[in-house]
């Protein structure tokens, strides 16, 4: 077992984990953040996307021990005081989900996308979401939601990004 200390959605956790524990399993089973889901388990679908020090990662492809000493934001850490994050709101208003399974990852990656590119074209949104698969093939409204979120946020700010990018790479 290895001892790790991780900040998840603003709360510090210290836990013993096996080195082989994937970050997604740690988040779901030890921290209880079941909003982050396991999709394909093969690094393809992006359903498990979270932010590690503010940058999107596939949490099935990070070991929990690699996140020791770092900050993780999950889909559960976006809303503040009962208010949806602007990206969550945009997904809601634009019906950007069908079965909803890809939604946590789609929203986390969409926030990262607007952090890098606050005013993307439709093609740039599609390219930026290339690591996230929607098996309902409901991409049209997902892209619409991301464009709506971008339009609703006139300037590049932490409000648009949700989480500030901090620290170096892990």
């Amino acid at each position, binding site marked *: 077992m*290895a001892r790790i200390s991780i900040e998840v959605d603003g709360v510090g956790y210290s836990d013993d984990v096996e*080195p082989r524990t994937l970050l997604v399993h740690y988040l779901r089973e030890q921290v209880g953040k079941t909003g982050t889901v396991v999709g394909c388990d093969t690094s*393809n679908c992006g359903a498990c*996307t979270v932010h*590690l020090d503010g940058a999107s990662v596939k949490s099935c492809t990070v*070991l929990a021990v690699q996140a020791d000493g770092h900050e993780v934001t999950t889909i559960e850490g976006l809303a503040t005081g009962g208010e949806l994050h602007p990206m969550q709101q945009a997904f809601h208003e634009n019906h950007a989900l069908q079965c909803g399974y890809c939604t946590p990852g789609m929203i986390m990656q969409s926030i990262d996308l607007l952090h890098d590119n606050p005013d993307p074209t439709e093609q740039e949104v599609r390219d930026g979401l*290339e*690591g996230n698969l929607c098996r309902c093939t409901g991409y049209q409204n997902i892209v619409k939601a991301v464009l709506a979120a971008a339009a609703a946020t006139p300037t590049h700010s932490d409000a648009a990004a949700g989480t500030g990018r901090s620290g170096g790479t892990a």
Partner: protein
Amino acid sequence: MIPAAFDYTAPESVADAITALGSDSEEIKVLAGGQSLIPVLRLRLAAPTLLVDIGRIEELSGITEEADTIVIGAMTTHADVAESDLVREHAGLLAKAAQTVADPQVRHRGTLGGALVHADPAGDLPAPILVLDAELVIAGADGERTVAAADFFEDMFTTAVGENEILTKIRVPKHTGWGAHYEKFTRVAQQWSIIAVAVTVQVDGGVISQAKVGLVNMGSTPTRASAVEQALVGQPATGDAAKHAASAAADGTSPPTDTNGDAAYRRHLATVLTGRAVRAAVGG
């Protein structure tokens, strides 16, 4: 899917990493960004007894400039390589290829050094490193040694890095002012290249003065399309010259046959994509 159990150590210096690699654990693997290794562990295609995580060695990350060289730490991520002003200005081909690796999440974690040592024949970074005539700095128990990119890629998934060594730095000669393009052919998003072509050219007064062309997945290691390079030098920087030179792109290659296409299809693709890549490179 859960990897088989392994021991884990995260040294904070290159010297400690080398020491860990010399331990008597049965099968030791180096963990860089993990974007190729962790999927392999999950599928239990590999079951190492010890993982040496070099992600906490600060000196292995970052991009610096020397007189006529860009020095990239092996643990620098694809995202940082792609976004680096230094790399964009002096090794544009590498920045463009890094931007096409997998997807944004993978580019945030995957590293240049990890991708080079993994040496997947369909990987995007080996060919640019080869054509830019980079040098690879490898650390071991006896200190550092430097290997030219042309000698680094030995076979599929096999490089000059020995069992008790790690790649620490990639030294890329400046190609300031060279045009560059990385043309990648995939069937679906985030797929490995069926093939890809890496081109960088220097154009003086409308004439191609130097040309470097590399092929991805046209053999077990990245390949230089020497016949295309020779055919381009001295030619006007035009589409006709590109098309003529590209017809030799598949000469001397032995591409694989797999479910994405047979060898003849890849040879044909190589000529088409090389033409496109050269036209794009001379144009900018």
